[in-house]
């Protein structure tokens, strides 16, 4: 269990980002939520490069919540880059999106997403989803051993 571990939220829509952070707060998930706005910045952060150069890349988020439709570099491209990287191929990534289209679900799992969650329109359901996601990925889930 690690309450300090960051939950990385990659989301371009400000409303959705704020609602997600609020939902985590309301669900009493204490981990800090770091929000990044697009796929390029997400990879810069995780690979500790660009404006995140110098960051300790081994300090990994508990989970990445990844939207699919992102500016510059889309969610699937981010997943592909992560899975191709030795240091990040096991990083837990949950696709968090409005879409329930078969092709999106299939593509996400094909790119080895750990999970696929649809953002509910109903805020109460959103809080429930955030609580379950937060508890599962920061408390219940056991991460791969260090040095993977």
């Amino acid at each position, binding site marked *: 269990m690690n309450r300090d571990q960051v939950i990385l939220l990659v989301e371009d829509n400000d*409303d*959705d980002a704020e609602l997600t952070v*609020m*939902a985590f707060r309301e669900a009493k998930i204490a981990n800090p939520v770091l929000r990044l706005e697009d796929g390029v910045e997400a990879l810069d952060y995780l690979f500790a490069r660009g404006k995140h150069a110098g960051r300790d890349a081994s300090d990994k988020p508990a989970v990445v919540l990844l939207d699919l439709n992102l500016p510059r570099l889309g969610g699937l491209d981010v997943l592909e880059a992560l899975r191709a990287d030795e240091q990040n191929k096991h990083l837990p990534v949950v696709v968090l999106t409005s879409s*329930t*289209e078969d092709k999106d679900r299939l593509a996400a799992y094909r790119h080895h997403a750990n999970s696929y969650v649809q*953002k509910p329109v109903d805020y109460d359901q*959103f809080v429930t989803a955030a609580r379950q996601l937060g508890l599962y990925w920061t408390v219940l889930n056991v991460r791969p051993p260090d040095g993977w």
Partner: protein
Amino acid sequence: MTAVLARQVAEAERPAARVLLADADNDRRRELAGLLDRLYQVRAVADGEAVLHEVRTSPPDLVILDLRLPGRDGVDLVKALRDAEATHLLPLILLSARADEDAALQGLDAGADDYLVTPFSEGALLTRVRARLTTARLRKQSARRVAEVSKELESFSYAISHDLRTPLRAIDGFSRTLQAAYGGDLDDQGRRYLERIRAGTQRMAELIDGLVGLSRITRATLKRERIDLGTLARRVLSGLVASEPERKVEQAVANDLVAQGDARLVVALLESLLGNAWKFSAKQPQARIEVTSEPRDGDLVFLVRDNGVGFAMDYAKKLFEPFQRLHSPSEFPGTGIGLASAHRIVTRHGGRIWAQAAPGQGATFYFTLGEPT
């Protein structure tokens, strides 16, 4: 430019169609090639293997095939061309001698488009070639158009499902937060307004889900298999019972309701029809839902009947249109998508759906699933 003139210009500017001529008779091959050469790009070959080679290496727009080619039976050659993906729809005109007309007919059976018996006039050949090329072009155009439209539909439905939900989530989320954090500063009226906003967003979300479902039905590939509607109906009904266990509803589902249909879509169809029967019989002290079949005009017709509130037949025409509802939401909730989906599922199967009802006398929905069962 007039439309006619525009068409003529377009006709003139279109690159000449490529015609492959296969004829073992040297004199006739030269003669026909000369004739066709004025209008088309012609390649002429003299045996069956050369035909197969040519269609692979420089695909023609049309093939003229003499049935008596050395090295390969003419009818077999037609079959080979029809079996291959690339030449499945390639226009194919056969040439045959009077004595061989049977072979030409076999060739038509094997998928050739037309045939000519020798001797034939120049006009007979050129007219057939032109007609077949036009048909093929129109077929290609409409296939392209269908592909375009279905692609448009797909991105439209994607936009609805994805992009419309996002602002809706913001409206619901922030009004909920407003309620929680500042609700105390509002009077009862103000809080009621917030409730109305949230109810509106939920309704909108349901409509979006319904529309997306509807377009999914249109786009789904139909997988016809042997299904038992009775088993499927009982499964759907037990789901409804589980959702409202306190209700007492008599169920009468016939055995042996076997049909050929897409199981997933037919379940959605039954969910819509049985869901309605369940909903509209809610105020009935002795509710009853029946699923059965009867033969009618050589078709097997399936029936879903309830003894609920029914409706006046004056409105029956609007029943299957999206968003049309015969009851107010306060009376019976719903989006008006269910029967539109049912209609689309039945239509996709090549079947028909209709209803018979009267106010206070229940409703019966009839449907067929196309091909004989």
